[in-house]
């Protein structure tokens, strides 16, 4: 048995891993956002890095001079918070847009229309033009594990990836549990 604080797959360590885009890919993403008029959706399944990418995008936009308005929604927080007072200097980032009811989605979209930009994350395409599609691979999972200090073989990462149907968050949780039990892979 090992202490939670020492677990290489503890949440605080996993959160340090950022979305893996090269600088040219970032430039292309920001150019596409510009092309879409500052309005788009980051689309992908559970555990594919949508929230991480949205946070990283927020930092990039902030560095460009935007005031970031982050709306975080999830299964526990489905209600739309106060969204009044947004202006052209604001860039609205909404994580988990699919949690909203139809009426709240319309409210958010109406309010965000006054902002300088609006990007959401969602599991399914549709609500806004697709800005980026998040996809995972066994190689990405292997790279993350190595970066966290616990390398996996190609076979291990392939099997783990398949067990969780590409959900890297769930795969990393399994690695957390295995490490805490001292299970050798």
């Amino acid at each position, binding site marked *: *048995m090992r202490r*939670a604080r020492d677990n290489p797959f503890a949440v605080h360590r996993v959160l340090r891993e950022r979305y893996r885009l090269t600088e040219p890919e970032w430039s292309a993403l920001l150019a596409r956002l510009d092309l879409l008029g500052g309005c788009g959706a980051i689309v992908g399944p559970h555990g594919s890095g949508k929230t991480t990418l949205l946070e990283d995008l927020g930092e990039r936009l902030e560095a460009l001079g935007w005031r970031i308005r982050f709306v975080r929604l999830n299964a526990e927080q489905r209600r739309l918070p106060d969204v009044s007072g947004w202006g052209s200097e604001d860039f609205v980032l909404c994580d988990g847009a699919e949690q909203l009811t139809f009426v709240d989605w319309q409210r958010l979209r109406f309010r965000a229309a006054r902002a300088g930009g609006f990007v959401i994350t969602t599991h399914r395409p549709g609500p806004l033009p697709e800005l980026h599609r998040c996809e995972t691979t066994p190689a990405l999972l292997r790279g993350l594990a190595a970066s966290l200090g616990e390398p996996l073989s190609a076979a291990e990462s392939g099997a783990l990836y398949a067990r969780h149907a590409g959900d890297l968050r769930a795969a990393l949780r399994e690695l957390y*549990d295995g490490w805490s039990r001292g299970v050798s892979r």
Partner: protein
Amino acid sequence: MSTGTLTVAPTDAGTARRPGEVIELSAEWSLATPPRTLEARLFWFTRGKGTQDVNVVETQPVASLESSGKRRVRFKLPEAPYSFSGRLISLIWAVELVADDGASARWEFTLSPDGKEILLDRRMASAPRAR
């Protein structure tokens, strides 16, 4: 975030602390731009599998508009919660020196009646401790 250094360390050695004890720390900073506020925070936080939790127990102002300096700060430690670790979660105590631009330094310590981290698993507690 401005460039420079911040350090916070106890004036006496050791990280084993007991409930109700008064700890004294030396806070030292040298920053490129004077921080509007510089404060010391006594807090605990969690590490592990689930959502991270944090609770600031006490905050003390250290300085304002001074680009460098050295001060002593004291905190009376509360009775609880004790430092502990299990498989799912660890609770860790710390004092942090934080400038308003986000620059910070941290010193972690253990709070419990015997100054040792409480290990929630019996096998863990009975295992020989590394020296």
